[in-house]
């Protein structure tokens, strides 16, 4: 495998990781909710795309127009019903983190249970856009390339919105100092709720794209939560560009290790970098800056 091949394959794989992680970084960084049910949201969206594609013959890309708002509404409702009371009674960030972990741990099983009842525990897979696209002599699958492009677009757009607009400034204010934000007229509850819902929409986008090329079951959500969590922590909590670059780095490392050393060492390599970054930059690659 030539270097160019490895780089392109790695970036495309990393695009999936980044796409999956960006919603979590919004939810965790801005709404301050450590959402353990994040992966279940992804799987739910994957099932939705599967249903739309299989039963109704809807192109998953069009299906996204339905599933994305669905993810947003779901996040909005979950925040209002489950998270709002936790936020209201929490004294500090640490408290809220523990409460939200416990609450979303429960939510994880509720969503998973509902999916098991409806769809059973079978492997789900369908094939969409599984056609090769040649870039600089390397063949990549169109559906994976789509994930990569989507990750880049969403990541950069949201980054610009966050740093260049008034609305984005309010979001960042809530992330940095939720107790002081009301002093300048920001409705913290509404802003956090919006950020959480946006995270839900991003999870849904990830789910739809992933369902095009990855086999999933009703119980495979936790794998995505774990991967997303690693990327989020590596990139710096709440930092979109951090999540984007950390995701791409992971993809590059995994492909590089698989091509040049041994496919058996990909997991070990992932955790080795994770450890290295935690040791040298505990706040994450981009943590602390650029919020």
């Amino acid at each position, binding site marked *: 495998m030539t270097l160019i091949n490895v780089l392109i394959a790695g970036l495309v794989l990393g695009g999936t990781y980044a796409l999956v992680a960006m919603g979590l970084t919004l939810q965790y960084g801005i709404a301050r909710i450590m959402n353990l049910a994040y992966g279940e949201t992804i799987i739910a969206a994957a099932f939705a795309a599967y249903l739309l594609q299989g039963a109704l013959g809807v192109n998953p890309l069009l299906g996204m127009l339905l599933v994305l708002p669905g993810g947003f509404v779901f996040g909005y409702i979950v925040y209002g019903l489950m998270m709002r009371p936790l936020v209201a009674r929490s004294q500090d960030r640490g408290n809220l983190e523990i409460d939200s972990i416990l609450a979303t741990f429960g939510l994880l099983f509720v969503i998973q249970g509902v999916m098991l009842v409806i769809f059973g525990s079978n492997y789900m897979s369908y094939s969409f856009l599984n056609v090769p696209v040649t870039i600089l002599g390397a063949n990549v699958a169109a559906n994976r390339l789509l994930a990569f492009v989507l990750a880049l677009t969403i990541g950069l757009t949201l980054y610009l919105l966050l740093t260049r607009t008034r609305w984005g400034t309010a979001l960042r204010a809530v992330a940095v100092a939720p107790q002081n934000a009301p002093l300048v007229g920001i409705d913290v509850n509404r802003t956090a709720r919006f950020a959480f819902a946006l995270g839900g929409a991003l999870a849904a986008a990830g789910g739809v794209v992933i369902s095009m090329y990855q086999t999933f079951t009703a119980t495979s959500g936790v794998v995505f939560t774990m991967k997303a969590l690693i990327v989020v922590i590596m990139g710096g909590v709440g930092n979109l560009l951090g999540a984007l670059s950390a995701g791409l780095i992971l993809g590059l490392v995994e492909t590089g290790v698989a*091509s040049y050393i041994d496919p058996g060492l990909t997991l070990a390599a992932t955790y080795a970098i994770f450890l290295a970054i935690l040791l040298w930059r505990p706040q994450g690659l981009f943590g602390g800056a650029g919020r």
Partner: protein
Amino acid sequence: MTIFGGRVRLSALGLIAGALTLGAAAHAGAQDRDSVKIGYAVSKTGANAGGAAITTIPNYQLWLDDVKKNGGLELPDGSKLPVEVIEYDDRSSAEEVVRAVERLATQDEVDFILPPWGTGFNLAVAPLFDRYGYPQLAVSSVTDKAPEFVKRWKRSFWFLGGGADYTDALADVLKTEIEAGTINDKVAMVSVADGFGIDLVTAARESFADAGIEVVYDKTYPVGTTDYSPMINEASSSGADTFVAFSYPPDTFALTQQAQIADYNPKVLYLGVGTGFPVYGKNNGENAEGIMSLGGIDPNNEQNQVYRKRHEDLTGQGPDYWGSVITYASLQMLQEAIKRVGLDREGVAEELASGTFETVLGETKLEDNQLRKLWWVGQWQNGVFAGLAPADRPGASKPVLPRKPWQKQ
């Protein structure tokens, strides 16, 4: 908020009520014999759920439905007793499956216990089945050590052969093709770093060496790997005509898709678990043709066709082409053994070991507590996953090689 809270409380009440009825029913059954209690623990959630949901659970459902329609389990005196089922979810945890089987034996005091899904889980519960005197019809477990296990646990029965059976047969098929000049004598091989993959690849290295087949690429990958392009590229440039993957279903599906992207066309493509799933044939259509794997069926066996139809009608999904029909046949054997000797577990075990049974597989007889009449290698041919080896078994199909290159979609 009040509505939400109310609902939660309501459903909690429902749960408790359900648990109480279950407990009460279990209690009543233990006192007088008006039913036969059959229990099982199987992975309904967790990592093994996907496998159990295709090979094990639907066949338990189908068989229990058969028994119900039959008016119950028939006993030697011709009377019939309805079956009471106790089911536990082992949550894909080995500790949980052991605990559940122990509970079935000691607290629920069931008459028979059906086995869990998976090689590891069947081994985990084998000592318990033995200690409490239950016959164990271990179907979804591939192990070369079955002959030893049979000596250690006298009432254990092994239905799916061992790794070496499958890889020896594969090596035979390849050797014939090499001698015919269809393919070269080089193999590229990847395997998942987990139970099935490790067992099979270890056996395969020996089988290929014995057959004089050269393994030019041999790598393992961790469970949950999603990107196979580095391995496919390496295998592609290795010069091997044969690509073998001892893979789990998500890997099998991904390998198939990614080999198409890379336009990788080995003359022999052999993939692991999942190749024999009906969804595999459905998703890949024409492109599935010629792909080989473990298992298979005789496409002209009418009993099997009837079984496949009934399976689909009842459970809404087709059975897989490997373990499903064997699972169902093992239950038919259990039913027949009970009919012949009654509910005495010792007697049923003896009958299973020595009797001859008419099942969906045809006439079925165990040898040394093992089912040995199996399809070791199969291939997708005309939309059916047909058994190729052993080639001298009646109903065997001929290999169609080299497989055609991927069709552009």
